[in-house]
């Protein structure tokens, strides 16, 4: 066995070891959903409060809304457990109003999730804010609603940026496609497919249970890994000949996954259409950014005339296979245990 071969094996094993160390963090990719706090003014200075506390692996995150000091609860909070969140409802009286008051989500700093705040004022104005771990407080004011809806765009970009599983699937597709025209067809198929199911899940309130859905998404990544290996071996298959077909089929699944980021919020009906549109645009911006990044890097490698050793060429397939297998086993196990 040559030194080069031994080195390749050592590097591959080290990579697998590093991946195993990173897996627990990567496994959280889609478990955290954004929280949602809605205040609806039902009478002057009186508000109905809806607080959707996000959960992780079935456990509620320790997030608590801290209302302005001038506000008082009119009844005891009532709770309801949903698949991806705990919902709390209560009534609040704020004699001084909410304008200029500070609203805080206590504990947000400790979690990698966001909380969407939506305030429906009595005169019809709607105020929307997206609170992040680095900035868990907001000063409520009248002008904020103008920019509020753009928060859904941000949510879409964030959802794809943190959705390692979606990005890995796109990477797998990019590694399979052979030419520019096939690339355009494949990415368009994936986009159309996930837009269809994202719209169905959001507009028609079609609910796909999260556990089997996440397991199927993981399986889609695992499915691509051997196909990438086949491409490098010069073999062919239906996936390699028509990657756009696979992109469309699995894109339908991934669309339901994207919808979880929006559906978990439980937005009022009149807010759903613009939220869906902006959220989807955000997802596409993130996805296209990733596609251009990978294409740009591939082009750069060719300009720099880099001849990767065999083990380095196989790393993306190993990544897809290892993570796909890990996520599939983990998610199926969770599904059975529940």
């Amino acid at each position, binding site marked *: 066995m040559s030194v080069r071969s031994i080195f390749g094996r050592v590097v591959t094993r080290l990579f697998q070891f590093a991946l195993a160390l990173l897996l627990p963090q990567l496994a959280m990719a889609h478990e955290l959903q954004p929280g949602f706090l809605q205040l609806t003014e039902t009478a002057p200075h009186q508000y109905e409060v809806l607080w959707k506390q996000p959960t992780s692996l079935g456990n509620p995150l320790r997030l608590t809304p801290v209302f302005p000091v001038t506000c008082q609860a009119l009844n005891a909070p009532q709770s309801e457990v949903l698949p991806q969140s705990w919902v709390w409802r209560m009534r609040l009286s704020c004699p001084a109003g909410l304008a200029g008051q500070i609203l805080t989500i206590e504990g947000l700093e400790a979690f990698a999730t966001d909380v969407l705040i939506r305030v429906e004022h009595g005169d019809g104005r709607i105020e929307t804010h997206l609170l992040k771990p680095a900035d868990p407080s907001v000063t409520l004011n009248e002008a904020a609603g103008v920019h509020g809806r753009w928060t859904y765009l941000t949510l879409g970009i*964030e959802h794809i940026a943190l959705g390692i599983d979606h990005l890995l699937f796109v990477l797998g597709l990019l590694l399979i496609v052979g030419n520019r025209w096939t690339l355009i067809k494949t990415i368009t198929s994936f986009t159309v497919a996930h837009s269809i199911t994202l719209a169905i899940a959001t507009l028609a309130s079609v609910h796909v249970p999260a556990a089997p859905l996440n397991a199927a998404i993981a399986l889609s990544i695992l499915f691509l890994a051997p196909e990438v290996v086949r491409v490098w071996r010069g073999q062919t298959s239906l996936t390699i000949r028509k990657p756009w077909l696979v992109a469309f089929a699995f894109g339908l699944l991934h669309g339901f996954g994207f919808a979880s980021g929006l559906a978990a919020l439980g937005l009022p009906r009149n807010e759903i259409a613009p939220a869906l549109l902006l959220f989807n645009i955000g997802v596409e911006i993130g996805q296209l950014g990733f596609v251009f990044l990978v294409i740009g890097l591939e082009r750069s490698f060719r*300009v720099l005339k880099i001849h990767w050793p065999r083990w380095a060429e196989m790393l993306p397939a190993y990544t897809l296979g290892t993570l796909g297998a890990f996520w599939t086993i983990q998610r199926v196990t969770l599904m059975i245990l529940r």
Partner: protein
Amino acid sequence: MLVVLGVLPLPSAAHLVSTGLGPIYDGIGHFFLSLEDLLPLLALMTLGGLNGVAAGRRIMFVLPSAWLIGGILGSLIAVGTIVPAYVAPLMAIMLGVMVATDAQLPERVLTGVIGIVGSASGLTTGIALATQTNNLQLILGSAIALCVLATAVPALVIVAATSRPWMRIAVRVLGSWIAGVGLLMLGWQVRIS
């Protein structure tokens, strides 16, 4: 490098970007928005591209490695609040002039320059981020951003410089701008110190 660190101690000016997407993305944001650190690295990548394909490959592999080693070392030694504020402008001036004059460096010299500039830049960032929680993840995020740039910029310069003669001149003009900005940054540091 250590001499420079000792001679030019200035208060730390870490400015962490919060993307809300976690420390890796924060590290990427920090890298792209720290112009004073980015400028000499951009000049070095451009110089690599002007020196040809082999030099571009050297930039791609050696620069991120040297930067990462410097960054991890900086976060570990964490020299309190000392950050060498003059180093980045001086490197930008030196490398900007090299780009402007289209300096063709021997392979070993270029590798040495990449190693010194990369590790010095990484060390500066590592020290600046040492006080942050998850500082290693922040450094890793910055290193990922550097990997992408160190691959794309030399390739872009090679394509530009070999496509048309005036493009090579344009790249050299860019070098003079980098040197000019470096000079302004140095002047600013002298003024505030």
